[in-house]
């Protein structure tokens, strides 16, 4: 029983950590801000929750499990809100959600200006 639990939690931790890498890769590789948001949301959902589940399965006391659950609830509410705030601010700030090419030009212009 304990062995099965260890394997399950180990698998959750490993997959969660790999998803974090994939998410970081997405944030680097994807072409413009709005597509990068999708890469980031993998870390907020899959990565974070699998790691939390892996840790909950290993928790040695009820209290530790509850605190991990609270972290999960806080992330569940704040992560999409922060993503949406960034997306909305970028939209207001003039980035085009439909045409990555236009943003590319704009981004380079901003880079030159900076």
């Amino acid at each position, binding site marked *: 029983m304990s062995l099965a639990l260890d394997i399950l939690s180990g698998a959750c931790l490993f997959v969660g950590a790999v998803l974090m890498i994939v998410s970081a890769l997405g944030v680097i590789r994807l072409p413009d801000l709005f597509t990068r948001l999708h890469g980031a949301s993998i870390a907020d959902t899959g990565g974070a929750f699998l790691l939390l589940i892996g840790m909950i399965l290993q928790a040695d006391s009820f209290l530790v499990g509850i605190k991990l659950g609270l972290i999960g609830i*806080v992330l569940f*509410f*704040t992560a999409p*809100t922060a993503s*949406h*705030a960034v997306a*909305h601010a970028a939209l207001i700030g003039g980035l085009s959600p439909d045409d990555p090419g236009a943003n590319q030009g704009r981004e380079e212009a901003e880079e030159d200006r900076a």
Partner: protein
Amino acid sequence: MSEHLIVRIVSKMLIPFILLFALYVQMHGDYGPGGGFQAGVIFATAFIIYAIVFGVKRTIRVLPLTVVTAMVSLGLILYAMVGFVSLAAGGTFLDYGALDSHDPVHGQHLGIIIIELGVGITVAGVLTAVFYTFAERWQK
């Protein structure tokens, strides 16, 4: 930013829990990480997010400047008071053990809790005051 629906509602849900978490950190300083300073910072954070979402004017209506100033001095007074009371009870300055002549351990516990409360109140007041000052500078 108060016209921003999602941010407004999620902040409204979150603020009471940030405040509660600050007080939890305050009271559990001797069981885990935390204590007065950290609690004060988290407590002030709740007011800062309120100011970011609903504006500084409305925050000042909730937590007026006079209250902030009073908090800054109240914390310090609490801290000094513990010191002088222990001095009066026959110990040295801030010698918590002297607070309870029968049970020094209980005295120490009480002294630390009051002192941490003083630190927390002062830090929360100072950080809110700093934020108000920063935000106000751009009003004119």
